[in-house]
Each structure stands twice: as C-alpha cells, then as structure tokens.
C-alpha cells in the first residue's frame, strides 16, 4: 500500500516525500499492484503534479480531522489549551506539536486541567479549551464540568473516544462520556462523521460563549479524526433549537424602573451574571445615578467596587448582617444575574417578605424558579444595564440609607480582636498590599472569609467555585488565571484540606514559571464541616480532624502525629518557595517576601486556630434575619 510505504515520510532509497504527497496518496486510495512497479521518483513527480492541478482548480486538499481541529482552534482565536494526552488523542497531540500558535499546557491531573481552563476563561472572557483522552481522562473532567456549569463558564472540552466500531464493546478506555456528562454540560455531542466535525466545533464555541455561558463537550472517536475530509471551517452558525436572547423587553424594563423610582426602600441584588457579562462599570454608574444600595451574592462580589459607599455586603448564609437585614426589609428587590440559590435565600417563604421583586436574567429557567418574581426580564446583564443606564433617575433613598448605616454600625463585619492571627488579619493585609490582583479560593471557611473581607475593587477579580462548591478548585484556578493574565498578581487562598486535593499542580506552576502566591489557611481541620459540628453536633468532630489516624484511634484521641504534609518542605520539593507564618506580625513580611519570587510560586502556610468560626451565620433552615452573630 502506498500509505504504508510512505508512512514515515521517507520513501525507499531515502527519498523524502513531502507531506502533501503522502496525503494525496491516501486520498487516491492507491492501486497496490501497479504502483509498486513505479519508482519513488516517479510517484513523487506524479503527486506533485496532482497537487499543482488541484491548486489550479482552486480546490483545497482534504485533511484529517486532527488537522481540522487544530485549524478550527486557530480560527476561534484560541491561544492556550489545557491538555493531557492518551492513546485516543495522540494524533491531536501530534498535530499540536507541529505548530507554534497555540500554547499547550500540561497539568498533572485532568480535574485540575478543567479548573485551569475554567479560571482562564473566567479571567480572560475567552472560551477555555480542554483536550483529554478517552475513558479515565474523560471521567476526570466530571467535577470540573459541573463546576463550570453551575458558575456559567464557557468551556469547550474535547475528549478522545475509541474508534466507532469499538464503541459499545467495553473497549479499553471506553466510556460514554457524553452520557455521563449530559446533565452537567450545556451541550455534548459525539462526532460520528468526519464531515460534521467543522460544524460541530463551530457550534460548540458558539454555544459555550453565548446566552448563559457553559461547558460544551465534544467526543472525538479516533477513526473519525483520522479520516480525510473537507478542510473548511464554517464561519457562521445556525442552530434551529438555540437562539439566545440578545435584546431587552423595554416595556418590562421601564415598568421595573418605574417601580424602582417609586420604592421607599429599594435594593439592588447583583449576582454572578453582572460579572460574567462584564457589566460592572456600567452597573456602578447605574448605582451612582440612582443612589440605591447594593447587596451581592458571592459570585456577584465586585459588581460594584466593594469600597463603594452604597455597597452593603454579601447576602446569604454568611452574608453581612446589614445586607441580610436590608433584604428582609426592602420594598423593592431589583436583582440582576442571580438564580436565588438556597445559600442566599435562607428559608424561601420568608425571603424578602416585604418586597416586590424584579429579576433580570439571561436564563428563562432561572426566573421565578425558587422565588416568585413580580417583574421578570429575560436579558443579558450587560444589555439590560446599558439600557438601565440610559433611563434611570435618582431615587429618594436617604432615610433608607440611614437605616442601613445603623445596621452596619450595630453589627459591623469583623472578627473578635484576638491576640492570635485570624483570617481577617491575613485578608486585610492582602487588601493593603495588592490593588491589582486576581484572587482565587477553594471551598470552605477560608472561602467565606475571603468573600467577607477581601476588597474587590476595580482592578481586582474574585474567582471562586460558588455554585458547586468544589474543593481543590483554588490552586489550579490560580494557574489558569495567571496563564491568562501574566501581568496580574494572582493569589490563591485555600484551606489545608482543599490544597491537598490538587497539590500535584505545583509541578505545573513551577514548570510554567508562574509566580503565584499560594496562601494555605491551615487549621488542621476541615473547618467548615467542623464549624457545623461545633455549633450543631455537640462538638463531635467526626471525619474532620486532618491529623487523626491510627495513632489517634489507638490512643483514644490522646496523641496525634505532626501535621502531614509539611507544606513548606512540599513547596520546596517541587522547586517552589515555602514560608510558614504563625503570628500576626509576620503576615506583611511574608507577602513582601512572596512578591520577590518572580519566577516560582510561593506557598505561605498560615497556622490558624480552628476555633475561629465564620460569622454571621444563618441557622440551617432559618430566615436571613435569624443570624448567629458569635458564640
């Protein structure tokens, strides 16, 4: 067979055959008996002639699916992809190896890989792209896809798949990944024919970034990708079942604005949608014009700068006292880009009991789902806020603002003034030292502390797993953020639990020379669960002590080994820097030290007291106003 003969690019007698000729030989299918008789030189001349003929005819040559994929990525403007190789994607790896336009990042685990692409997307506004192999490579995506799905992050994930004739055979590294991820992706599809590939990729990017953004999964059977087909990548999309809303119903919006003007105690509630649509600046203008106070969800933090005088704080389970009280008392709740998740509403029937509710959201299914909405408006936040900015008028809110200030004074957001170091001390120092930074978090107490105390001003962004609450998100997210914004300071804050869920990414961070500042809040416990155990489970700290093990059991809890791992040594073993901070006075110096490391990540381990809890806290099943302030 000609392809076999020319397979490695060297014909017999060492004559180099150009890649173009090889492909044409594949196209022609080759007539074995006759062609064997021809010398390689003749073949070469023949093929070159064919190439010329085709070029003359204005026809482009056929290319493999693997080649088209790389071409498509370039057309979509992808500059970075996160990939982990395997048998079913080795041909794609090979195509990527042959080019320089797309940077390929090799993380150390596929879960971290998606989080990296996810944070890259959240911070740059581009679509994050993942490439993993079939089977376990694909299943390792699951947590990351769900994380991205809940927080509306645009991702396109390519998964390898076994050849079509093997699908359904329980072949080696075969899983039905489209089936597995059906409920946690915006769209998922297996490419069954080479001719569909271009269209499917085009649609995937379009679906991922438009409407309510989300992850899209494309499953690529190995044989389909090897097949030759059209090199064309479409430049337009037409999906009959998907027409995202791009306008605002002006009648509804004006009605809502009229209500805003009339209200005595109006309140803006900004969710993640405002940040995703990058409507922060315009929204701040609207707030300035109206003089209406703002509360945000944790995903919405930064919708107005947190030092803005009209910003009250976050609402919800660990929201600020004044914010939760304001929601309870407002007579108009004007909400944008939130889905009224149970963590922000508390007891549903008692949520904003005195308020008419306006709800702007891109996703119709988010409106009137958890709470009854009086004025529903389906629109992209940026579109809606732009229109609002044109029409809003100043509102009479002086009395109302006084009331809010009184609540703020009554229970300011603070931690007790302990002599020992608290999370508040660390975050406040961070606020002082960094005004241009991306802050990523993991999930748990430290996350709540960050959402309470971290100032998110204009040049700052908070990146956190708000919807799914994924431990192990923070560190890889910092890597993705830094790769997307190399000029920004990137700080990740994790607990000692979550840090160990993706600790292997230290290798990625060191090899990519990323000067991240990795803060580990080490209190030797899985703190948020411990907080519940302390408050509601009679201090029975089951499964939350990170030092418990055989010795602990043998000695009835009398003895415990040293904390494992030693984070400082661990950082150093990867080639990073490690610091340990135990006192308040050392915090500032540690951050200064970390800033000096411009080529490697610095891990700062803060030794904290597990007895410091996150307050305020809504009683489980309680209303927003039923807050535990401290105990």
């Amino acid at each position, binding site marked *: 067979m000609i392809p076999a003969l020319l397979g490695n690019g060297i014909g017999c007698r060492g004559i180099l055959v150009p890649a173009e000729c090889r492909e044409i030989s594949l196209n022609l299918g080759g007539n074995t008996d006759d062609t064997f008789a021809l010398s390689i030189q003749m073949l070469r001349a023949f093929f070159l002639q064919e190439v010329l003929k085709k070029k003359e005819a204005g026809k482009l040559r056929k290319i493999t699916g693997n080649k088209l994929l790389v071409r498509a990525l370039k057309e979509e403007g992808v500059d970075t992809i996160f990939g982990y190789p395997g048998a079913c994607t080795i041909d794609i790896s090979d195509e990527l190896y042959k080019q320089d336009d797309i940077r390929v990042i090799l993380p150390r685990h596929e879960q971290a890989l998606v989080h990296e692409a996810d944070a890259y997307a959240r911070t740059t506004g581009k679509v994050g792209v993942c490439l993993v192999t079939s089977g376990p490579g694909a299943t390792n995506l699951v947590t990351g896809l769900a994380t991205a799905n809940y927080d509306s992050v645009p991702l396109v994930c390519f998964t390898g798949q076994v050849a079509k004739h093997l699908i359904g055979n329980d072949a080696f590294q075969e899983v039905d990944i*489209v*089936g597995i991820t*059906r*409920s946690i992706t*915006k*769209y*998922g*599809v*297996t490419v*069954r024919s080479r001719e569909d590939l271009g269209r499917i990729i085009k649609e995937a990017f379009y*679906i991922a970034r438009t409407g309510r953004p989300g992850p899209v999964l494309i499953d690529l059977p190995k044989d389909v990708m090897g097949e030759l087909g059209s090199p064309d990548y479409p430049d337009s999309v037409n*999906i*009959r*079942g*998907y027409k995202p809303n791009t306008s605002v119903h002006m009648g509804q919006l004006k009605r809502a604005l009229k209500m805003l003007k009339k209200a005595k105690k109006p309140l803006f509630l900004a969710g993640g949608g405002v940040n995703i649509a990058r409507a922060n600046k315009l929204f701040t203008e609207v707030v300035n014009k109206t003089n209406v106070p703002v509360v945000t969800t944790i995903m919405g933090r930064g919708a107005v700068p947190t030092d803005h005088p009209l910003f009250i704080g976050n609402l919800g389970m660990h929201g600020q006292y004044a914010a939760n009280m304001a929601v309870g008392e407002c007579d108009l709740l004007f909400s944008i880009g939130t889905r009224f998740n149970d963590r922000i509403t508390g007891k549903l029937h008692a949520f904003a009991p005195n308020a008419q509710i306006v709800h702007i959201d891109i*996703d*119709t*299914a988010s409106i*009137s*789902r958890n709470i*009854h909405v009086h004025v529903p408006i389906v629109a992209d936040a940026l579109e809606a806020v732009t229109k609002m900015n044109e029409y809003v008028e100043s509102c009479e809110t002086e009395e109302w603002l006084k009331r809010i200030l009184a609540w703020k004074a009554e229970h300011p957001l603070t931690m007790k003034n302990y002599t020992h170091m608290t999370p508040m001390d660390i975050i406040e120092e961070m606020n002082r030292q960094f005004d241009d930074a991306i802050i990523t978090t993991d999930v748990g107490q430290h996350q709540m502390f960050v959402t309470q105390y971290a100032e998110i001003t204009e040049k700052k962004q908070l990146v956190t797993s708000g919807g799914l609450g994924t431990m192990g998100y923070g560190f890889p997210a910092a890597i993705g953020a830094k790769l997307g914004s190399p000029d920004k300071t990137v700080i990740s804050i994790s607990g000692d639990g979550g840090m160990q869920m993706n600790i292997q990414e230290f290798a990625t961070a060191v090899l990519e020379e990323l000067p991240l500042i990795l803060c580990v809040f080490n209190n030797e416990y899985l703190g948020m669960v411990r907080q519940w155990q302390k408050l509601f489970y009679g201090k029975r700290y089951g499964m939350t002590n990170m030092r418990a093990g055989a010795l602990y059991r043998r000695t009835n809890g009398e003895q415990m080994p040293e904390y494992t791992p030693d984070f400082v040594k661990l950082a150093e073993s990867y080639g990073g820097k490690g610091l340990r901070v135990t006192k308040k006075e050392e915090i500032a110096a540690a951050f200064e030290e970390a800033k000096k490391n411009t080529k490697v990540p610095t891990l700062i381990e803060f030794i904290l007291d597990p007895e410091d809890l996150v307050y305020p806290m809504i009683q489980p099943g309680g209303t927003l106003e039923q807050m535990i302030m401290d105990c």
Partner: protein
Amino acid sequence: MDNSMKKRWISLYVENQVGVLSKISGLFSGKSYNLDSLTVGTTEDPTISRMTIATVSDDETFEQIKKQLNRMIEVIKVIDFTDIFVRMKEILYVKVFNCTPEAKVEVFQIAETFKAKVIDYGRDSVLVEFVQTATKNDAVVKLMKEEFKSIEVVRGGSVGIESISMMER
C-alpha cells in the same frame, strides 16, 4: 398560580439525533419531574422527531419543565397541549387468556362498546386493539382486569396533534 397536581401534555419538536431521548428523559429523572408517558417518532422531516409527553405536576413545576426543555440545544420547539384543542389518542392492546366461551362473548361486547377491534383470536385467547384517549384506556384496563382472570396489556403512550377545527380532545 395553581398548586394542585394536574395532568398536562407537551408536544416537543427535537433534533432527530442520538442521545436526545436520553437527554429529555434524563431531565425528568434528574430534576425529579413526574413523567407519565413519552412517545417519540420522526416527522415529515427526517431530521426532526416529535415527542408527546404527559406529566402530572403543579403550575410552577410545569412552567419550569417547559423552560428547562426550551433551553436544551436539541429542542427546537415546545408546545403546551394542556389548554389548546388537540387530537390525542393512545393505542392499547389487551390480550385475554383462558377465555371460556362466555368470556369470549364478553370480550366481543366490550370491544363493540368501546369501538375497539378484535384483531386476533385463538382457542382460548383474544387480542383486542383500542385506539382512544389514555383516560378511556385507563378505564378499559381497569374493567378488563376486573372481568378476566388473566390479561396482558401493552400501551403505546399518547400521541397528539393540534386540531384543525374540532374543539374536542
């Protein structure tokens, strides 16, 4: 809003692709929506399938079901059949075993009453085909279960289409 549980029907136009049925049924199971019956078949356009779905839910859940279906990429159109005039029928096969001659007479009488067809006949068993509304089929099944010792039932699920002029279901 009406919070009482009611039977409702939806007609869906979906892409005729692998996995779409699974996605739709997965939505119902994943979000704990009731799914009474679901039928699917291709339309005059082979790239489009049409589904008829029956569900029991309150107003609020039903609104959410429609929205969730609408936001699926593969769903082209959602039509709420609950309050519009439609033609809707379900096919039902009932096989009656161990029939005595008297029982056979009764099967024939039932078939005649319900305008059903006796389509197969053996020494001691009879097969009847009913094409009528799902509610009437419910009644038939209940009746036949009471009347005969041993029956076998297969139901097709409702299929529906909007009426042109008739104002009845």
